[in-house]
């Protein structure tokens, strides 16, 4: 197997995740797309771990999974709070920072 098979798959998933974050209007969908990006990173970590014969890659992938879990928890709480306060989770609606 080529190293690049996995790396390019990761790059593709990352780009798809970026598209999701930038284009989707639903707050929950944005969070899901972020998960996609995090998973793309995980592929790279595991593949390079295998390539270099070290276990650190897997360990860091584990940490990423743990951090992603924390991120989803807090992110969904924020989305919930937004929904409660604004009765909408459409990110287009939130432009309080408009100059």
């Amino acid at each position: 197997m080529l190293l690049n098979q996995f790396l390019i798959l990761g790059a593709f998933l990352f780009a798809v995740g970026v598209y999701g974050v930038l284009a989707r209007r639903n707050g929950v969908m944005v969070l899901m797309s972020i998960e996609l990006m995090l998973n793309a990173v995980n592929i790279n970590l595991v593949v390079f771990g295998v390539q270099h014969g070290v276990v650190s890659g897997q360990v860091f992938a584990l940490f990423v999974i743990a951090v992603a879990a924390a991120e989803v928890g807090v992110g969904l709480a924020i989305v919930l709070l937004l929904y409660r306060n604004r009765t909408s989770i459409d990110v287009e609606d939130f432009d309080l920072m408009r100059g």
Partner: protein
Amino acid sequence: MLENAFIIPLIPAISFVVILFFGKRFIGAGRVHVVGITALGLVWVLSAVAAFQWTQRVEDPPPGAIVQLEAHVDEHGDQRADEHGDDHANDHAALSQDHSKDGHGGGHSSPLIRPVISTFSQWWSNGGVEFAVGTLVDGQTVLLLIVVASISLLVHIYSSEYVKGDRRYVHYYAFLSLFTAAMLFFVMAQNIIQLIVGWELVGVCSFVLIGHWWEEKPNTDAALKAFLTNRVGDIGLIVGMIVLWGTFRTFDIDAINTLISADPAAHHFALLVAACCLMAAVASKSGQFPLHTWLPDAMAGPTPVSALIHAATMVVAGVYMIARLYPVFYEGFSIGSSSINLMAFIGGFTALIGAALAFAQWDIKKVLAYSTVSQLGYMVMALGVGAWTAAIFHLFTHAFFKACLFLGAGSVSHAAHHTFDMRKMGGLKKDMPHTYRTFVISALALAGIFPFAGFWSKDEILLGSLVGQENSYPLMLIFGCAVALMTAAYMTRVIWYTFHGEFRGEGHPHESPKVMTVPLWILAGMAVVAGAFNLPSPVLEPFGLEGLAHRIQTYAEPSVYLSGLGLSHPDPSLAMALVGSALAISGILVTYLYYWRGMGPHGMTQRNRYAKNGYTFLENKYYLDHLYNDVVVETVKRPIANWANRFNQNVLDGAVNAAGETARDTGRWIYKWIDQGAIDGSVHAAARGADSSGEGLRAIQSGKVQNYGQLLFGSAAVLAIVFVIVV
């Protein structure tokens, strides 16, 4: 005590926990100050013991405390390879004792005493890098221990009256203790990681205490400003520390200093980078230009906290850090061989602008705050010209009289209905005799009048810039002399407005209770005698007391690190002392004539356009706040968003408008420059420039997070493309 110095910061830390968690329930909210004062009393006693033991160590060094001087200079390379070990007891530095550099006078007659280093254990390790934790105690540390403990103890006592009945009395005392603990931890840091930790702890405590009365918006703003401005410098701190680690592969302060002093020229460029980065950190923490703007706003906190911040803890952290890592700065900025450098210039410039700003303030605490900015600039300038001892000596004396001035201002406001506006004071001399006398004593000390403490330390700084190292520092000498004159003048102005003339406030002012005046008198006493700790020897010779000369230089200076750099001490000069005194006295005299006798051009700021513009410029603090808020912050806050579908209208329009505005402003500026003088024109141009750049960038901001995201990822991709093409 020197080996177990960790106990000293531990005591106030425990006091913090006890007060915070048990204060209200078990001790009683009104009695928590007992815990804090007891803890600080203990700290003070232990610090005194430590100081005494250190003097013993210098006078009568135990075996192993003296640095073994290596005769074979060419073996340095082999020696240093072994020095990274953890065993400091055997870590005899290979120092080149190059006395040929000690050109004028001084030199190191005393033996080079090693600091007491205790490494307790590896704190943690990660990826093969080990982080130790321990204490490094030398003369410099014990000096700061004494200063911090003394000021903090007196502030604790004073506060028990000043903030009595405050709704967050418990929190106040808890964080006062933590603040002290953080500073004590900082001064005895053994490695640069601990320096960073202590530095940040001090920062966060100051944030909490400045925002103590957070119900009012200005106070929270001030706390945030202090915190965020410090964050700017912290970037510099961390980058600088990383550069140091990358250069020397160790976090150990002792090892870094020893390595540099053993071979000063080895890493000049790396040290220059590190010193510049660390200088940014110092600028934010010690209120140096251009990051000094948070310091006057920090006056929003309770006055005793201001005293603590300005005299002993927060702001001297930056100066202390320079002194602690002095070889880095000395080599990085080539202090020994230059006649002007970044540190000396920033220090001198800060001293000058701080003193100038102090004239335009009506808030007594703000005058004192700018005075602190100015005096800190003095210290940094002293370090910048190579006068290490003078800087630390000035830190020492300044701590006492500045604390006294702040507590005095607090006493005034305590009596006069909690106002700090000098226009609502006046004539307090007869009502508040104790406050008046201590305030005048400290003001004289600050102005540098013989024989008060400030005279001796200021004189040493001026002398240091006059003589310099290899070259003198003429510009710094001019700055220093100008500041000496201005300091005396603005302090006289404060005394006039506060204590003399007619009372302009409401109600009946009264003297503060003993709990507040006794600390004032103690500090005033120190303001008188603190100069005695580093008297030059010619002063003492007639009395046969030469042995007591230069005590701070003998005990506090880390000559073990500095000797390798060839740092020299100037000979005392009577002429310089006379010039310094003459400047201070003339400053007082001019102000005295102006206010008391009503001589001089009164009402000039109303009549004369130039003077008025200059005054407005000062009143607005050089418009630095406007620059930061309106241009820098707005630019960052309003990035070029939504440009895809608005590029045509907004950006081009905005650019055209901005260009037009700028052109118009330029025209106006020239007009005004010819017509009304440089100050007025430049001020207006600056203001309008800020306004138009804000307006121009305003329209480009949509507030939608996804637009920002597109910009972020898009620019990341573009940068990546550039990177791929270039590399």
